[in-house]
């Protein structure tokens, strides 16, 4: 186990480096170097700050000076659009918001998803089973901006239980988390339900039943553990995606999170911000996948991590 984690931790910077390289190339496919963007001339104070820090003779020399800055000082550079903020400050203020909403949404999705999946599997074909599967399909089929807007209208607009937009207290977190958890929650419910249906047919469950365990007990004590594996592997990428923020939810509820920058940075051709945001996202994704793999081995000891 320790060898495995160590091996993966060694791989981590390599993967990040490659991802960084790809993003760098893509970001530079957008016209020119940051100072020569014809649509939006860069503000003079930003240009000055950039020239002081970076060597802009060619993409290569820039890449070198940028990497040195990131590695030695952890400095992700200035933003080309937000003139009084550095990329570090933007990420520093946006990430906590996104992570808070993301974690809440993820926990909600897990509770709701596994719960409904389990109850559906206990009584297959029942009214509960059908309706929860139906709701799950709707959850997958409706765009998040529709779910989010409808939630906002009902709970903030008509019932006035919760605030409409903004980010001040815990009440502001409820609706965004609910909207964000709809899609992963629906997936988890389906995965749990299908996984359980498959596992309940396997031999070890038959043995457990033959020993006299009731169906529900066999379901929870034995089948759950195996059926949870697909959910677990879904959680890796899903958690990174929800935690770095869903741009749609953040846009609808006007949250000061990180998700907005994923889209706006590219549209504004703010190359430093693109690179910074991708670095944060990829690091989280790689770490989450590592966590999931470790959890996998813990739940299912048959899996060999190192061959």
């Amino acid at each position, binding site marked *: 186990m320790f060898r495995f984690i160590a091996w993966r931790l060694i791989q981590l910077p390599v993967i990040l480096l490659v*991802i960084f390289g790809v993003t760098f190339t893509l970001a530079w496919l957008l016209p020119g170097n940051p100072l020569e963007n014809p649509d939006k001339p860069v503000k003079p104070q930003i240009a000055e700050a950039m020239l002081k820090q970076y060597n802009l003779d060619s993409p290569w020399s820039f890449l070198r000076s940028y990497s040195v800055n990131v590695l030695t000082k952890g400095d992700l550079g200035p933003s080309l659009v937000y003139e009084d903020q550095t990329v570090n400050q933007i990420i520093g203020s946006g990430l906590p918001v996104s992570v808070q909403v993301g974690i809440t949404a993820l926990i909600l999705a897990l509770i709701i998803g596994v719960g409904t999946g389990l109850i559906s599997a206990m009584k*297959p074909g029942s009214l509960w089973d*059908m309706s929860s599967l139906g709701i799950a399909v709707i959850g*997958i089929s409706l765009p998040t*901006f529709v779910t989010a807007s409808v939630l906002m209208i009902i709970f903030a607009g008509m019932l006035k239980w919760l605030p409409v937009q903004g980010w001040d207290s815990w009440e502001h977190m409820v609706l965004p988390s609910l909207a964000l958890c709809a899609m992963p929650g629906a997936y988890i419910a389906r995965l749990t339900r299908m996984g359980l249906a498959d596992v309940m047919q396997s031999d070890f469950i038959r043995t457990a039943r033959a020993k006299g365990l009731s*169906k529900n007990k066999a379901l929870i004590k034995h089948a759950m553990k195996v059926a949870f594996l697909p959910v677990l592997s879904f959680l890796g990428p899903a958690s990174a995606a929800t935690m770095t923020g869903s741009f749609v939810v953040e846009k609808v509820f006007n949250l000061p999170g990180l998700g907005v920058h994923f889209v706006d940075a590219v549209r504004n051709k703010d190359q430093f911000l693109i690179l910074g945001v991708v670095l944060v996202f990829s690091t989280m994704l790689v770490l989450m996948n590592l966590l999931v793999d470790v959890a996998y081995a813990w739940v299912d000891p048959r899996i060999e991590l190192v061959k």
Partner: protein
Amino acid sequence: MEPILSTLPQRRSRWRLNTGMLGAVLLLGIALPCLLSLPWSLKLYDAQDYTLINTAPGSTFWMGSDGLGRSLGWRCLLGGAISLGIGISAAIISVGIGVTWGTVAGYAGGRIDALMMRIVDVLFGLPYILLVVLLDLALSPFVEHVAKWMMPDTWAVQLSQLLTLLIAIGGVSWLTLARVIRGQVLSLREQPFIEAARACGVGRVRTFWYHLLPNLVGPIVVYATLTIPNAILQESFLSFLGIGVQAPMPSWGNLASEGTEQLASIGLTGSFTRWWLLVWPCVLLGLTLMGLNFVGDALRDKLDPRSRKSHR
């Protein structure tokens, strides 16, 4: 007392079959009108009547009209054709790339396999939406240039926007398929019948076409049907952010996102006055995606070798 072997999937398969049929009927019921009405909807989608703005569904406009006096019915029909078109073309692109990538990796094995799969890993590591937007922006001048060379300028601009969009969406959604196909090829490669083909002196290309590909049809069909709803959903997100299908062209995505703007009226007036602008596109979008998901799931149960074991 209930029997020990009371099995879930028996009931499940009956329910699956029904949903599969239901999905297919839903899809046909929505897709056919959208496609068959194209000759009319292409002419009428931006016909404006300023005397009849924001009229409720009724005898003049059977789905109501929008703030510019355009018939929402025609816009929904054309929007459906565009959304479905994007979904299907993006699925074709992603199947093309995914199957090629997966088979080459699985068939070649060794270092080439490792390298190709690491590339997939890296692309998985990039934020999906950022990749789409980047691709969209980076490709659009190029595609527009090519389109202008091939047809009159007025068409070229609109068509190249659609083309870039679906290339961008298709170009990022082949990753899962590549992984699945590669896994399939890896296990098929070791099967006796492939070995027998090789022993008979069958070439690699022929082996692929006649022996490997028929065995891959199952997962390909399944993932293709599941890619279509995802692509349509991606387009709707992009439309919501203002980078999807551009006005005045409609798609379900941008119709729905225009509709969400109407929700603000509830906060102000307390009643949802122009409900039709949000409800129709959402219902159509939701039902189509539901139909596609149902069909995809039903096909997966039938065709995907990994879930076949549950139908013993």
